[in-house]
């Protein structure tokens, strides 16, 4: 063992030993660190650990598609003119040449046909926006199904819901900007929704449009909302969402070595940065391919907006499809009070149900917590089957959403599947109420059956598919014990306790305050937990292991011998083997 001592001071001379000159990169880093002090923060965060699972990347799809939306959106603003001033189109698309239209629509046509790459970027912007909202939704579903919304992450759930809401609004304002026939029809519908508001409806409409519809202000106003107000809020909320993610640390699946107090995974640099960075390019690539090959909103076919025109297939973008569906299937209920019409047929599907469902969505973690009274920190995820009622609630909501969404495309379904649009409407009126209930029951029972299956696997092992025949002719399937890590994974959950409201009445027969509420909570807790299959106890497991030992002893004579015919499985030499003694 030799040490290079040439650089070590070897004398007490007056000049001190000097470190060698740092590399150029090091010099730049030192320069920056002296002024910004980033080293301290980086040192910690570059080693930040993220757990690895495909479902943790769904939110990343949302993040990266949002980045694509921002990048392409900036490009579009260079050419788009947010004005309702009337011009005569003289661009490249000849079927519209000479037609009078707004500058907004003319500039969208110019962007599509006369700006190099403009149509591609426009289509990428639109596809990325659709994917942005879709990926937020599947991310939300993942978070709910795995219980990642539980304390301490409830506020991040709220932020996520707000992002979903703002993303939808952002999408709607963007849909309205080209001022083509479709987007104008959308604005007209929004105007109708505003005017359906009792008392203040027409005031709100006149305020938004700067007078009677359509006026000349709506496009510039929507533009400001679309490129400044909502994107600013979105960026701020995305930042808050991610900061909270870093602060809380990412949740992980339970497993050997993974506990509620640690995070097992890969460090930010180099592994996770490479994976996430790579994923950005994949998202960008998928959006680019879609933008290049698939038409989205070919505005030149719609022509300029004109309140006297409308087209079949006038639908909002997909994320507004479900309120549109509710609007399509609701009966024409109206009542007249003192000479004023109350349009229930617009208020219920548009002004009441969507906001109510948004509030319910935001409140879900708090409702869950109120029923479970679980105030502990949770960093380990639950499998959907281990919270059957919770899973079933979301599936019921999804069913409602999906049916309402399908109702929004009732005309397209009618012509493509050769159905009657009336029959679809009648079906949906019932299905919207019955469907979620059926979905709830099926999902809950399904989850409980899966829990039962897990319990079977823990107690009796997994099914090998090997059928044994006993000397007296009976057949049985051989079970083998599951691996220890698998068993750990299946048992890494709490044993649940049903809340009971007993003992809340004192000896004088006086109920404790809040007793009635406790009764409700007890009922809900029963619904939530009472039918769940709990993991086996230690005694049950030991009993099962004992049983397995016994079973193994019974078949001990077979050990080392493949069942007849199974020796030809290609995994062992078969030179001396004979089949059925021939």
């Amino acid at each position, binding site marked *: 063992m030799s040490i290079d001592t040439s650089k070590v001071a070897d004398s007490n001379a007056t000049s001190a030993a000097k470190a060698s000159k740092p590399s150029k990169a090091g010099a730049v880093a030192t320069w920056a660190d002296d002024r910004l002090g980033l080293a301290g923060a980086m040192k910690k965060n570059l080693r930040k650990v993220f757990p690895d699972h495909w479902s943790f990347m769904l939110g990343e799809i949302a993040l990266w598609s949002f980045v694509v939306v921002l990048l392409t959106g900036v490009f579009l603003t260079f050419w788009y003119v947010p004005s309702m001033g009337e011009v005569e189109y003289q661009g490249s698309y000849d079927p519209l040449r000479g037609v009078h239209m707004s500058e907004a629509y003319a500039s969208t046509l110019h962007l599509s046909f006369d700006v190099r790459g403009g149509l591609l970027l426009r289509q990428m912007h639109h596809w990325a926006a659709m*994917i942005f909202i879709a990926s937020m939704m599947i991310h939300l579903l993942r978070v709910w199904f795995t219980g990642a919304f539980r304390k301490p992450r409830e506020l991040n759930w709220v932020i996520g819901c707000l992002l979903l809401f703002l993303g939808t609004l952002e999408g709607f304002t963007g849909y309205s900007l080209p001022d083509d026939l479709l987007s104008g029809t959308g604005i007209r519908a929004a105007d109708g929704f505003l005017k359906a508001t009792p008392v203040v409806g027409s005031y709100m409409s006149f305020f938004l449009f700067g007078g009677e519809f359509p006026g000349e202000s709506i496009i510039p106003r929507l533009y400001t909302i679309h490129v400044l107000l909502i994107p600013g809020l979105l960026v701020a909320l995305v930042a808050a969402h991610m900061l909270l993610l870093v602060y809380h640390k990412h949740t992980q699946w339970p497993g050997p070595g993974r506990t509620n107090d640690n995070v097992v995974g890969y460090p930010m640099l180099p592994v996770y940065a490479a994976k996430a960075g790579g994923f950005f390019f994949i998202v960008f690539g998928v959006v680019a391919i879609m933008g290049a090959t698939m*038409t989205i909103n070919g505005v030149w076919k719609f022509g300029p907006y004109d309140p006297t025109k409308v087209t079949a297939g006038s639908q909002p*973008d997909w994320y507004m499809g479900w309120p549109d569906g509710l609007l399509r299937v609701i009966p024409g209920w109206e009542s007249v009070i003192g000479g004023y019409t109350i349009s229930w047929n617009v208020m219920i599907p548009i002004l009441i149900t969507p906001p109510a469902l948004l509030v319910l969505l935001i409140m879900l973690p708090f409702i869950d917590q109120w029923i479970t009274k679980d105030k502990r920190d949770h960093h380990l995820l639950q499998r959907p089957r281990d919270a059957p009622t919770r899973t079933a609630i979301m599936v019921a909501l999804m069913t409602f959403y999906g049916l309402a969404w399908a109702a929004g495309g009732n005309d397209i379904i009618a012509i493509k599947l050769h159905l009657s649009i009336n029959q679809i409407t009648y079906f949906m009126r019932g299905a919207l109420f019955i469907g979620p209930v059926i979905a709830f029951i099926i999902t809950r029972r399904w989850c409980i059956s899966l829990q039962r299956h897990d319990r079977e696997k823990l107690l009796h092992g997994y099914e090998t598919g090997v059928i044994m025949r006993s000397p007296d002719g009976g057949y049985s399937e051989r079970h083998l014990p599951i691996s220890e890590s698998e068993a750990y994974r299946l048992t890494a959950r709490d044993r649940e306790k049903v809340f009971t409201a007993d003992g809340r009445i004192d000896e004088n027969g006086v109920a404790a305050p809040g007793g009635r509420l406790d009764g409700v909570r007890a009922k809900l807790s029963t619904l939530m937990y009472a039918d769940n299959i709990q993991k086996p106890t230690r005694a049950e497991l030991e009993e099962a292991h004992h049983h397995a030992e016994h079973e193994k002893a019974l078949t001990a004579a077979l050990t080392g011998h493949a069942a007849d015919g199974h020796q030809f499985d290609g995994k062992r030499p078969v030179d001396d083997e004979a089949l059925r003694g021939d």
Partner: protein
Amino acid sequence: MAGLVVLLLALLLTGGAYSLFSPGATAGQADTSAEDVTKGRELFLVGCAFCHGRNGEGVLTVEGTQYGPALSDVGGASVDFQVGTGRMPLAQPGQQAERKPPVYTDEEVRQLAAYVDTLGAGPAVPDESAYTLPSDFTDEERESAITRGGQIFLTNCTACHNFDGAGGAMPRGGYAPTLRGVEPKYIYEALLTGPQQMPTFSDGNLTPDEKRDVIAYLEDTGAKPAYSGFGLGNLGPVSEGLFAWIVGIGLLVGFAIWIAAHTTRSSRQKPGGSSNLPVNLSDGEPGSPKGGNA
């Protein structure tokens, strides 16, 4: 009974003879002869009279609704459209007569039209010059005709037939069919006669030139390249949403699974090998049937 049959036969003969010798509504038209009318009537009696009546007077059901409507004033254009596009004869009763391969030859359709033309004062089969832009149009005139046709199309047609003529839904299983792949003649005839649920666009409503321009717009946009890639059926936002979810989210979730399945490793060799048997049957050792988390 025999008397009734004789009477009916006599009436039939008289009617037939009348229709043979009467000048009819389109006597001036050069390409239909009396022979065409006779042959058309023969075809009519075999293929159409069951529902439309032997003299095209229509047949009522017991409830008083129409079994087959009267054809007295529908004109040859209507016959040419309904029979030429295969909508008539009906394959089966239903909400709407569907377009299908025509049963009659062009010659037979012409004869049927000639016969029905004699039943009243409906529009005749239009001449080709009615639905094609004149060949002596300058480029500028052509372009402005197409632009004008586009605006008329957006005002009058898109509400049912969709912005690209891809078709749309009508109440109770009815539908406005696609206009793509439909011969200009039939579009012109449909405008003239208003088949099924379609309103009639009379010449007072849309002048013949305006009808011609709408057809020119459809021909022009149909011949244009798809500037923006696959049209996804040209059905508007519903099919776009479907593709955003299936192609967009489908691909991206697929990639997410792919990325998560490929973790870091220090050598090019994949961990595990061919001996990664889930079940070791011979000695009954515990095996792991599955990896992964969910």
